[in-house]
């Protein structure tokens, strides 16, 4: 599960004070709110990329507030994918496993499995530049899932995608939800996305995160 308790973050003129929420283990939570409200900041704090001034982040019962990002075992897909440009798509997806020193055969098998599932087999040998928005998001998703993290953080993954690509990616994310075992926190400003994907919906308003009703 993901539990954020009394989280406060200050950065320049921007501040979040006492933000708390929880996502049950295995749930697909969608965090909704207006653009610029601090949703990405919360996501980055869970991933360990922002140091809070107060509060704590608990993942699977473990207080990880002081942990570096690498020790949190969290898959993170940023809004604009941020692929590693000097690497191929294959190297991007394999990155987390290579860093962990996984055997070559295991890396190859996992990359093939994810590429097949994400529909990027034809892109594997390509450098990760000049990909379409949908392709880049799928590769970023594969890169985040490769090391089988128990928690996945998605920052507006369907933003600025055309309708077909969006539908395909929605199907992919629904597949992840069906598989179970993965706790997902998906940030969006789009209510339709929340209705399509979230079995636990949270609303970020006035600096507070409150439940917005669970899927029936």
């Amino acid at each position: 599960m993901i539990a954020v308790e009394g989280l406060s973050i200050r950065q320049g003129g921007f501040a979040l004070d006492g933000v708390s929420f929880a996502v049950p283990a295995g749930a697909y939570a969608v965090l909704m709110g207006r653009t610029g409200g601090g949703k990405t900041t919360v996501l980055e704090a869970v991933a360990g990329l922002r140091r809070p001034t107060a509060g704590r982040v608990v993942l699977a019962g473990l207080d990880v507030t002081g942990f570096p990002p690498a020790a949190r075992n969290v898959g993170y897909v940023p809004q604009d994918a941020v692929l590693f440009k000097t690497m191929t798509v294959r190297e991007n997806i394999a990155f987390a496993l290579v860093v962990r020193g996984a055997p070559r055969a295991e890396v190859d098998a996992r990359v093939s499995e994810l590429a097949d599932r994400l529909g990027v087999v034809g892109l594997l040998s390509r450098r990760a530049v000049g990909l379409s928005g949908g392709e880049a998001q799928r590769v970023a998703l594969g890169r985040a899932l490769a090391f089988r993290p128990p928690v996945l953080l998605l920052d507006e993954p369907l933003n600025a995608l055309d309708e077909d690509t969006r539908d395909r990616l929605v199907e992919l994310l629904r597949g992840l939800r069906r598989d179970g075992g993965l706790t997902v926190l998906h940030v969006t400003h789009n209510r339709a996305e929340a209705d399509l994907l979230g079995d636990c919906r949270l609303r970020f308003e006035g600096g507070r995160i409150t439940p917005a009703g669970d899927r029936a």
Partner: protein
Amino acid sequence: MTAPVAPGARSDVPFYLCLGLLGGLYVGLIVALLVADLAHTSFGDLARAFASPQIRAAVWLSLLSCSAAAIMSVWVAVPLGYLLSRTRFPGSAAVDVLLDVPIVLPPLVVGLSLLILFQTPPGAWFQRHVLPVTYAVAGVVVAQFAVSAAFAVRTMKVTFDGIDPRAEDIARTLGCSRAQAFWRVTLPEARRGVLTAFTLAWARALGEFGPILVFCGATRMRTEVLSTSVFLELSIGNLEAALAVSLLMIVVAVAVLVVTRAFGLRGTGLI
């Protein structure tokens, strides 16, 4: 009654003509300098100059010292450029200003400062126990490095400024420490900047004259580099040899610029 013609409907030719004429004056000056050098040199002069053992020694020393200075420059420029680009540490603004000092100081002052530094007790100790530098070949490299490293640092800072720091953040969520993220993600993205920093430092070292003259003297076959050769040949009235060496330096400088632009820091304001 017809409406007056809008100013934007008139021809743009006079505008471009004015820009071209004013800008063309400077371009014309550079071309005229090169043509004048070429017109006053013959293949015979070039051949005679390069047959001279002194000038051949200067060519070798220039190639070696510039390469050493450029390698040393990149060694300090990569970490310093990264720190200045990515972090705010106490005194970072002062370090930033300090790095411009070798660029704006008159070259003779750099040489004089080096000379004085290596006469101080720590400098004298270094010369006695580690490496003699004053009036020595090692001093040529030190003098070149003192100035060219500043250009390399500026190049690397611009390079790291242009690389999205979030790629490093993502690498850290995927299991990397900061150091691993730097080696695996940021440095490969900065490789063109590293090559550009190397070539710019090399070119800057080649053109260095004042600090070398003051710090290392102009001893033929010992501390003579190409820029010193031009000075020495001129001082004994051998204009042909001075021109021949100058032409060689121009060819090398143009080659370095072509390579640098091919690597692609064009448009960053550094070249």
